[in-house]
């Protein structure tokens, strides 16, 4: 495994949520190989090596994608749909992280093939706990198909 390989792709438009997520992951030392993109369009560019990420090797897949739903331009559900409809990216684990407890979003996400769905707790302690558990699970416990 090459060190500079991205392990976590965080797709989050809210900078405060992103900061808290990164802080929680750093606490448990999982934030070293994390890249944060600000919206869905950028996330797709990164994954499919387009736009500013055209130089990137498409085969370097992140170990997990933490995806917010409500974002400008392309929302999380659309990103998930494109990822799961493409052969090359289908196997990447995606965790939806959202403030919404809207059941329709949850159902749609699982229909498309999301691997995990997490509602962000309001209080920081709960949030940090949830994020660190996610990081542990997808980066260490879960054996990826690769």
């Amino acid at each position, binding site marked *: 495994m090459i060190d500079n390989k991205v392990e976590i792709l965080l797709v989050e438009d809210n900078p*405060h*949520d992103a900061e808290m997520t990164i802080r929680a992951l750093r606490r448990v030392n999982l934030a070293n190989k994390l890249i944060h993109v600000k919206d869905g369009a950028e996330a797709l560019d990164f994954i499919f090596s387009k736009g500013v990420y055209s130089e990137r090797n498409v085969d370097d897949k992140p170990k997990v994608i933490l995806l917010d739903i409500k974002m400008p331009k392309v929302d999380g559900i659309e990103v998930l749909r494109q990822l799961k409809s493409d052969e090359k990216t289908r196997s990447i684990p995606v965790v939806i992280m959202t*403030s*919404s407890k809207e059941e329709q979003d949850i159902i749609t996400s699982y229909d498309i093939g999301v691997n995990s769905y997490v509602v962000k707790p309001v209080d920081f302690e709960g949030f940090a706990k949830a994020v660190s558990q996610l990081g542990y699970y997808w980066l260490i416990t879960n054996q990826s198909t690769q």
Partner: protein
Amino acid sequence: MNPKRSKPIFSRLSIQQRLPLLICFFLLFTIIVYGFLNYYSLKKATLMIGRERVNTLTEQISSMLGQSALATIKYLHNTAYMDQVSQYLATGGKQYGRETVDELNKLHKDSTWMIAELADSTLKTVLRSDKSLANVPVSLKEVLTYTHIGPDSAWAGKFYYVKGTTYYPIIASVTRKKHIIGYLVCWKILPASQKAVDQLSQLMGSGANLYIGNRDGGFWTNTIKPVSGLNFNAKIASGPFTFRDADGQTMLAAVQPVAYTDWLTVIGFPEKNLLSGMNGFMRWIFLFGIILLGIGAFAAWLTSRGITGPLNKLTGAAMAISAGDYSSHVSVDMERGDELGKLAHAFNIMEQYVQQTYEELEAMVDERTSALSEEIRLRETTEASLRESRQRYHLMINEVKDYAIIMLDAEGKILVWNQGAERIKGYTEKEILGKSFSLFYTPSDIENQKPQHLLKRAAKEGRVEDVGWRVRKDGSKFWADVVLTPIYNYGELTGFAKVTRDITERKKLEDEVAVRTAQLEASNKELEAFSYSVSHDLRTPLRAVSGYSVMLKEDYEEKLDAEGLRIINNIIINARIMGTLIDELLAFSRLGKKELTLTNVNMQQLAGLVTSELLHNETDGKYRVSIGALPVATADQAMIKQVLMNLVSNALKYSSKQADPVIEIGGSEDENETIYYVKDNGVGFDMAYAGKLFGVFQRLHSQDEFEGTGVGLALVKRIIDKHSGKVWAEAEEDKGAKFYFSLPKNNKQ
């Protein structure tokens, strides 16, 4: 009489009446024919005799008159033959004047000799008797134009009626050397007295009348006075003839000229006088005929009675049998050797047989009658009750005002119409009976043949219900609920029962409810959208507040003094409370759109699970929780768990300050519902505020006393409401509270 009816009348008569009538008819016929034939032959004979008699009589009288005239003529003729008369004329009146007058005077033999004159050959009167009483009524010249007098002859001339007296001349020619040198003329009056006439009439008999007249028929007299109006022509009448006299009666007459005169004699017998004897004879014949008829009729009656008597007897017996009189022995006692006797005998045999058969039949009939009367009694009872129930049913149907109950025939024509139908549809029974029920449908329904389709469907499916617009008599529409049911009679479709309800009001309400529901759904959608934005947009900044306060505390704890730490801690705590508040509020609002998934829930197990989930802290050991025998609930498992969770956590919370907190979970059930309760011995509450218990954000305790958002019980109520159940509480301050909720069984939601 109408011939059509006469025959039936005769045929209606009995033989006993018909036979004498027939005999009488033939007798009468014979008598009448015989009478008429006799009458006419007799009449003919009588008239022939009468004719002969009148002929003879006329000849006799005429001859008698002729002789009488001859005597007079001779007398005059003798005078005319005298010398002095011819000498007087020959000398032109110069000689023998006195002698001639003397001779003329001698001619006045009686009072009938009125005038005696002598005329010369120029017909001029030259001498006149002294005894002449009057002037000559008619000139000699005129007389001689009618009566021709030859030389040396004498004649009686025709009658002249002058000034009420009948005269006739007797003329004799005075001849000298075979030349007529003058005429001797005497005028006589018809001398007859009434007495003489009557005597003559009596002599002739049979009321005979004698008429004497001129040969030219111009004058007729009965010898007393002139007679007019004799309706016959004397010139052509010869021998016997008949005429009608002035009185109109038919006269049998004969005419004869009288010798030496210009006269005719006619004698007439009134025909009725001649026939009177014959008529008397006819009366006898008629009387005899009546007597014969009477005897004949009586004899016929006796004979027919001899025949019809026994026949009547037989008829009576037969009638008695046919009338059903079999009980007494009916027979005909008749000792006769003729056909009727044989008939009676045959009848008696038949009667015995009939009676025997009757008795057998009677027994059978008695047997059947008792069975039948029982059946009839049963049927009458059934029919009476049927009739009664039919009347009740009709009364009931008619009195129903909220439903139009209509009976239709198989084609949909209206047969029965109740008051409700009149009220709802506006037609009276009188104007609607016999019309088609399609009258109540809208034009478009009629065009689509909806009424016919409904009848077909009802007949096929046994019942059809239709809801839609119908039209009243005044053209207004109403929203109707119609049920059509076919009526069958022994498997044949005879009609339909149609029940219509006017549900226009209900339809209005339903429409209103539909509108309200739509509005409500719209507002629910808005609420959902609101919830979504709250859930996402409100939580995010709050999470930032919470996150950054924690980061501040973590990163700058050493630099903050005690007051700074207290403040930062309060920020963190309040951010957490607000987070909880938002989460619970969202949970509450989400319930609105959540669908119930009803299953049979093992409440006892669920209560155990909830209790163990809630009692995980070490300090929780002080609670004594007892779970009773809870009945199985029909509910949404997740939601009902939430209810138990909220109620039990409340119980734990509000009894947490007790030294010996006791929680009791129990339940019961009846036919319709299951009831559960959660009881604690905590602080309880004042029942005066019970109404506020289940409202959102409503709290009876302060945050300092007990933490809480005031959403928990509101959520409980909302869930139980969704299950169509009830929730209520009993409590007393400082003694504890008991919260109940009930769930309906077989909840179909």
